[in-house]
């Protein structure tokens, strides 16, 4: 700093030295430009928040928010949702026997739908007390391996530890998230009133983001001959089948692009979460509801242990509107905020009338 001021002075000295008698020109150049910006006189809009100006805004917000809130609330209420906890903690529960079983165990839970489920019905599985958002867990993956990168396939990222290698072979897909893939199988059986039963067709595709299945997740070397592509790797420890045999029914749905897998890989934000499991598509004829009211059975292949961490497993059936699943929160919030704004508007109106005039007439000391 010292030196810079020193230079300025030096320059100054030369300047005034050189100006001498004919200094008039130089003097003019030192005069600041009279631009609006430099004089801080740019044209400007000068709004001020007063009761008067804010009032209309409050009423407008109130008037807009309340109808939106009502709409949202009604929409949310029209959505049908059905939820079964099949953890089997209750000794009476049919799945109780599976809790301590080490081998694959099947149990079935009967339930009744009181109301018909129209349109596409979405089947979710829900877990609670499962910390998918734990930092160690979230980062335990290798996105370039999942994107089909060959070198990452054989040399997975360090982040995958301790699920990186097994028996000296690289794990594909590596990491804690992949290793803990949800592996219960859920099936729905509908009992017609005449006691005959029908297994409800569950669609396995379209449950993951399109961009995930097509861009973010890719099999090494394309989709053909996955067995060869995954040669030299081993399946995660907890998996029954290798990654290329996740879906025996649909060869396109195997490897890293398996949608169940992709859904699982999108880590949930909160410890209680649900994930889309299957889609039950609406009937072609549009006359009968997708899920008519009546008796159903949920057939479970119970593999996934949650008891150790006090977890719960649920199966959820839900219809969907334009605003997603059942969530009264948004509607209630909108109605509340709208009413509060309206109320504040009224309060401000009173204040404005009582005090506004006083302020205007108040003497302003000059």
């Amino acid at each position: 700093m010292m030196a810079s001021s020193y230079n300025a002075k030096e320059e100054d000295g030369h300047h005034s030295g050189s100006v001498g008698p004919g200094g008039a020109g130089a003097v003019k150049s030192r005069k600041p430009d009279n631009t609006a910006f430099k004089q801080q006189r740019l044209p400007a809009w000068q709004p001020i928040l007063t009761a008067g100006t804010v009032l209309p805004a409050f009423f407008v917000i109130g008037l807009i928010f309340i109808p939106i809130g009502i709409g949202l609330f009604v929409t949310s209420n029209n959505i049908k949702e059905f939820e079964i906890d099949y953890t089997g903690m209750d000794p009476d529960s049919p799945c109780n026997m599976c809790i301590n079983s080490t081998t694959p165990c099947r149990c079935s839970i009967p339930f009744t739908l009181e109301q018909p489920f129209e349109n596409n019905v979405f089947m979710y599985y829900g877990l609670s007390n499962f910390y998918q958002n734990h930092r160690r867990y979230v980062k335990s993956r290798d996105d370039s391996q999942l994107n089909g990168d060959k070198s990452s396939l054989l040399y997975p990222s360090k982040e995958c530890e301790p699920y990186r290698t097994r028996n000296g072979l690289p794990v594909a897909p590596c990491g804690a998230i992949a290793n803990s893939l949800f592996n219960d199988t859920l099936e729905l059986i509908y009992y017609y009133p005449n006691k005959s039963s029908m297994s409800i067709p569950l669609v396995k595709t379209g449950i993951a983001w399109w961009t995930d299945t097509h861009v973010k997740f890719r099999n090494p070397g394309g989709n053909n001959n996955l067995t060869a592509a995954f040669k030299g790797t081993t399946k995660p420890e907890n998996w029954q089948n290798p990654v290329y045999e996740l879906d025996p029914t649909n060869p396109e749905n195997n490897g890293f692009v398996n949608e169940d897998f992709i859904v699982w890989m999108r880590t949930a934000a909160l410890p209680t979460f649900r994930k889309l499991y299957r889609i039950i598509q609406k009937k072609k004829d549009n006359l009968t509801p997708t899920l008519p009211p009546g008796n159903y059975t949920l057939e479970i292949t119970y593999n996934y242990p949650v008891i150790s961490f006090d977890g719960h497993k649920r199966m959820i059936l839900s219809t969907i509107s334009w605003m997603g699943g059942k969530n009264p929160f948004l509607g209630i919030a909108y109605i509340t905020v709208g009413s509060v704004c309206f109320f504040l508007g009224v309060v401000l109106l009173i204040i404005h009338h009582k005090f506004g005039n006083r302020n205007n007439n108040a003497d302003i000391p000059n």
Partner: protein
Amino acid sequence: CTCAMCFTLICAGEENWVDSRTVYIGHKEPPPGAEAYIPQRFPDNRIVSSKYTFWNFVPKNLFEQFRRIANFYFLIIFLVQLIIDTPTSPITSGLPLFFVITVTAIKQGYEDWLRHKADNSINQCPVHIIQHGKVVRKQSRKLRVGDVVRVKEDETFPCDLILLSSSRDDGTCFVTTASLDGESSHKTYYAVQDTKAFNTEEEVDTLHATIECEQPQPDLYKFVGRINIYLDRDEPIARPLGSENLLLRGATLKNTECIYAVAIYTGMETKMALNYQSKSQKRSAVEKSMNAYLIVYLCILISKALINTVLKYVWQADPNRDEPWYNEKTETERQRHILIRAFTDFLAFMVLFNYIIPVSMYVTVEMQKFLGSYFITWDDEMFDEELGEGALVNTSDLNEELGQVEYVFTDKTGTLTENNMEFIECCVDGHVYVPHAICNGQIMPGAASMDMIDSSPGPGGREHEELFFRALCLCHTVQVKEEETVDGIKRGIHQGKATSVYISSSPDEVALVEGMKRLGFTYLRLKDSHMEIQNRDDEIERFELLEVLNFDSVRRRMSVIVKSSTGEYYLFCKGADSAVFPRVISGKVEQVRARVEHNAVEGLRTLCVAYKKLSPAEYEEVCHQLSSAKLALQDREKKLAEAYDSIERDFILLGATAVEDRLQDKAADTIESLHKAGMKVWVLTGDKMETAAATCYASKLFRRNTQILELTTKRTEEQNLHDVLFDLSRTVLRQHGSMTRETLSGLSNEYHDYGLIIDGATLSAVLKPSQEGSGGNYKEIFLEICRNCSAVLCCRMAPLQKAQIVKLIKASKEHPITLAIGDGANDVSMILEAHVGIGIMGKEGRQAARNSDYAIPKFKHLKKMLLVHGHYYYIRISELVQYFFYKNVCFIFPQFLYQFFCGFSQQPLYDTAYLTLYNISFTSLPILLYSLMEQHINMDILKRDPSLYRDIAKNSLLRWPIFIYWTFLGVFDAVVFFFGAFFLFDNTTFTSNGQMFGNWTFGTLVFTVLVFTVTLKLALDTHYWTWINHFVIWGSLLFYIIFSLLWGGIIWPFLNYQRMYYVFMQMLSSGPAWLSIILLVVVSLLPDVVKKVLCRALWPTTTERIQCKRQCLTTEQSTVFMLSQTSSSISF
């Protein structure tokens, strides 16, 4: 005679000086036997103003930067991130830090490069050195001490030189020191009598001499040395050297063809280089608040990290939570000791939350100050046409302090007054003479005559009258310049043919000499030590100028000794009345004193003139005294003062003069505005009480109804100081007590304020700590009195006393913010002492302006400087500081809340890119531009209504309640963001295709709401929307959206994770996400809007009332109209 004198001097001067150097002129050894030749090593003439070299730039610059506590903190965070496993990658804090460090380094590097360039051009410019009788060109940096240098006209001196000879016959040369102290007048420098004859190269080469002088010291006006000239004889001739022989580096040779001089101080030892040492840094009150807030936030940060660490271990006590089957630790992690784990966890939490203390705040604050200060220099209203200069900003660190000033200390002469002197009258033996027909310094035709107010004096009076006029024509240091234009003080005098101009460093002298001219005695020139005067009969009288006893501020007088053509020796003296009257033995003292006092009350500057005749013997004695004092190397000042004291006595009083120093343009208006703005204005002057008081009345510092309290020597002579002080304080306090009662009853019409006058002697008595320990008491009482006086006048102040007063007020218990304004070198100490120092680019040189924080051309500009610029900068920076903390609370608090839902695992809520760019780009520009452009009130209103300044007094916008309000607002907003998103995500889907969102969508939703809220919050606070504000505010929101689309739109090949891929777009494809963003933004902004509106309606400040007055007039009708519409629509 000279020789004999020198001989005695050598003997007398045999002091043993430690701090001296010997310079061998032309590097020639002295003749053997005279003195031992000790070659000394001196630095070369290289000027190094640069801080860095090419090699040490990186380490040295880094070291300097990391010495700042904030940078160091961020470095630590960065290193922690590098070393341990932390939630965010080191890039998030490394990149901003790197950015800050790099930008600063580039700026400093560039400045240093410029310095290098300047240094080089200076160091390499050619100088002419005499070697072996020839002129040799050399680069300036190769100049060594002892070299004989030739300098031609208009060249700048390459180092500090002792003048040996000049092309002028009398051995003088003219120099301007404009670049050193701004005084553009030509000053005369003298060569030593014995060397002035050496004025060709060959002759100079034969000069055999050594110079002994003190080691370099920074005082520009002090120099002591001795030259020993070895002629053919054995004994060298010794001559004293003083500052009149020393040519300073940076000064320019004028009006002299060429000179020969010897280098004595080179390079970094020159007085100029020593003078540009850095000043002590001043810190503003805002910066202090900022640091206090930082500490609070640091505590919040640490406690957050601690809470989370403790909770983490409580929560993890269950091993199934610590390490469930799906999420196992690695072997190394398991084996780590619990304490180490806990400590690294603590550090990791610190890292996660470290953004609460933003790096970018420092950068933004600095940019704001740096860029903002340009508005001061650009201001057209602070540009002075006459001077051709606008305001200067020397430190931008104090911009906002201009809005916080509580005490203004101003100098009188040149600050409140023009320092543009005009001769008004003179009084000889009680007879008053007034030159008439004067108009702004121009002499009207027939101005040579004069009015004599009094009856014509007798024959003795006639003699005195002539002597008086001659005395004034002779007793001065004015130079005559025969040129058309010269910078500095100029008055044209038409002398028939050529225009000549009087030049002097003191405007009083010019006024006096000109006044004399109008009274018929014209000073023509100084030629060959003879002063020529044209008297009333157009005869030319010649006086030989023998000695000049220069003016100094301690003696407050100057004298000359002249020899008239008839061979009589005269000593003429002029000086302040207090300096002259005690030394007068005859003359009409009473009449003159009465006139002087009368004039002083009128606000005129008075000087007394006296003389004495000297016999030749007396003159010899005087001559001897002076030269022995001048030759002394140690305590020369003291010895000179003693000599002067003994010479200047037994005067015969001639008369007195009165010179008017007009008030500066709008000085009274400015002072009134400052008063209205709640500032206390103190005038500190060296002038005498009556004059100063008159100026105070004229400038409305004291009003008619002001009750003046005097604390002067006159009073303390009657009573003792103790009683006077207690008396005064009782008066003031009684008034104060009754005032509060009056204000309570609402009837304070009778309110009249107090003005205090104190003089220097009494002040030092008050401040002197007495033995009984009651000194502190006096100080307290004095401060108590001052506090209750609206105006204080301190007269007869020495420069250091001015600084003392400022210091005293600064240290008083309220710690008020002080501002000192002055124009002269005597104000520098107070300018440096005060919180804000303002220099006026005045007639007394540039020293004040150079040492000040801000320099303005005129006193009236202070009004705009404080009331407009100061007010704006304070408003701007306080919003900047508060907003920065607010937006980072909003940013980080959701992360803190998220820890409760992710098992305290330090999982970040936002993506790395968002963490990094939030402060750098998404929210940085709007606040920066706000803090440059904001004008909550029109500047014309601010100027018209100074009382608005009180609204921001005492750092009112950065007080703790306001800080806490902002922090709570931040916490509230953060809670809204987080739980809004939380309930939206709560176990449900919000897409129309049933697909689920993950944690990154959650974070992105919170972040989007966050960015919109904090930006819109700023938009709500903006009162002045120029196109720039619109551009930046909407632009950065748009930038955020575009960036997010881009960031999620591509698989970035260089990243090892793709977690943000399509997250933002997927979020936007969902209706509820849009709805919740709108809802949450509205909810977050609502409380602040309501608070603002309610406060404005119920408890409006003056500022708000004025804003409203303007606004309501325009919007009233439309609002009522809208209301009637809305209410009607509701009823339907």
